[in-house]
């Protein structure tokens, strides 16, 4: 979408009364996303008094602050200065990232919209399973619901639209797809994206010492398994549906 007087990025804008947003683009790409992860870390390292919390979205860094302690002009200037210190789009990914291999059932009654999504991508069901099952995707951001990742980026033919009708509910662990991304649901939820796979992951466990399983920058691969194997993992209570986690070597 191009509008007259399109802004140039990076761009600093106000969010309501007590937020500021530093955006690195209006499209999602690899470099934009790396910039957000690195810039958020740098804002946190500044430890500005008056900053309440920070977060990333797909292409931006959000800073929530107390304007009584940190006036808008002062935060704006600090963020603008920080933007100048380097080319954030060249920044490396954060340290301590992990790689998750996640047993996933594609299609069947557990994930009933695989065929529809494959069709929209111009692939047979089997070709879709082969592709999606081999894709190594990254946590681009966590948002919408607790611990819930946006994962990408998939190939261009997966640039399929959201449905016009919302699916009333998909279960916890549902892998849904639209616009070259997966979302992996951390709570049972309605969605406009298509339910292509089902995992045994529980991404938000409020009682656990570390309630949020994933971190931005983590990588995941959704490896195809049969329904029988998936149900066996579920019945035996395998932690996180049998997912195998390892450190990403830089």
């Amino acid at each position, binding site marked *: *979408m191009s*509008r007259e007087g399109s802004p140039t990025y990076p761009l600093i*804008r*106000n*969010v*309501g*009364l*007590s*937020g500021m*947003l530093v*955006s690195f683009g*209006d*499209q*999602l790409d690899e470099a934009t996303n790396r910039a957000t992860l690195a810039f*958020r870390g740098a804002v946190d390292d500044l430890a500005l008094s008056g900053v*309440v*919390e*920070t*977060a*990333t*979205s*797909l*292409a*931006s860094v*959000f800073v*929530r602050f107390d*304007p*009584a302690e940190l006036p*808008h002009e002062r935060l704006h200037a600090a963020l603008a200065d920080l933007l100048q210190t380097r080319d954030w789009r060249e920044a490396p990914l954060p340290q301590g990232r992990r790689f998750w291999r996640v047993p996933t059932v594609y299609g069947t009654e557990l994930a009933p919209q695989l065929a529809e999504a494959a069709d929209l991508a111009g692939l047979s069901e089997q070709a879709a399973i082969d592709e999606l099952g081999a894709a190594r995707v990254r946590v681009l*951001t*966590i*948002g*919408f*619901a*607790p*611990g*819930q990742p*946006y994962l990408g980026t998939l190939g261009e033919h997966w640039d399929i639209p959201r449905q016009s009708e919302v699916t009333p509910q998909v279960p916890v662990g549902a892998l849904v797809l639209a616009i070259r991304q997966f979302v992996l649901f*951390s*709570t*049972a939820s309605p969605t406009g994206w298509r339910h292509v796979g089902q995992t045994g992951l529980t991404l*938000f466990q*409020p*009682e656990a010492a570390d*309630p*949020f399983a994933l971190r*931005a920058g983590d990588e995941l691969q959704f490896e195809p398994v049969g329904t029988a194997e998936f149900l066996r993992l579920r019945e035996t209570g395998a932690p996180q549906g049998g997912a195998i986690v390892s450190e990403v070597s830089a």
Partner: protein
Amino acid sequence: MRALRVLRIGPSCTVQDGGRVGYIGQGLSQGGAADRLALAEGAALLRQDAGLAALEMAGMGGLFEATEPMRIALTGAEMQATLDGAPLVWNGSHRIEPGQRLEIGAARRGVYGYLHLGGGLATPQRLGGRSTHLVAALGAPLAEGDILPVGEETTPAARRVTGLCLDVADRFSGGELRLVESFQSDLFDPAVRRRFAETPFTPGRRASRMALQLMSEGEGFAAAGQLNVLSEIIVPGDVQMTGDGRPFLLLREAQTTGGYPRIGTVLPCDLSRAVQAAAGAVLRFRWVSLAEGLVQQAAHDAALARLPSACRPLLRDPADMADLLSYQLIGGVVSAAADPFEPRDEPGAET
């Protein structure tokens, strides 16, 4: 155990405090009491910390019993309230004894009523808070038979009074919501933004702790290129336009990111008025500059800080006083200056 027994309860009653700060980056919105002002009013009436948890009652209260003598306060949407059948003043603080039955009925006006307890509700903390966050499945609505632990009083004994009340301005009948422009406001034509502020809205049926649907006559308020917006951060107070340009006011329990564009953000200090608007109330929006919004919010915060000194002794109507004869009506044994309910903030002033 110092506790409140739930003998009967409405369908949407939850434990609420100020919510959880610091988890937006993990996808967990702050949550907390829908009417933050009511939380502060209850704390002022009980002379205690506003961060303590209270019972939030949406539309309908319940029947309760305390295991020990306790102080309570009632705030927010006014509900029919009685103690062993005798009416209790809303926006007031009272004492209840073990075995007495506290009954709270339907809201007469507004949506969310609050029951506060001296010492606060002491349900287990999770992620640094006690708030039930329905969207995150963090806690659940209360049910008949629940026993809610109540914390020990932290208010010094000399200040542990009851029989105070607050005069509360009407925020339960709709009215004006002030909003500032936000980072997506310019996706909407100036004419659409103007028309938005000229349109009366009524709350729709799809109201929850997450969002308030806003109904209006006439065409919607669509943005240009509405469906191509990248998902972005959401803050409470954002007014989001769905695909057909119908507005939803997003509240403290909203999702943390979303793809629908937002026309502006309602000032935090006006959210109490928004959430307390029941079916039939009329809400209107007024654009204010960022500078004016900051001034209005600061004035509200200052008024919150003054709430404790705004509490005054509850004057009973002699006609309602069954125990009139037990009061000493003449004699001046106690001077007015030594009124035990005199609301002053100096330590020891109430002794």
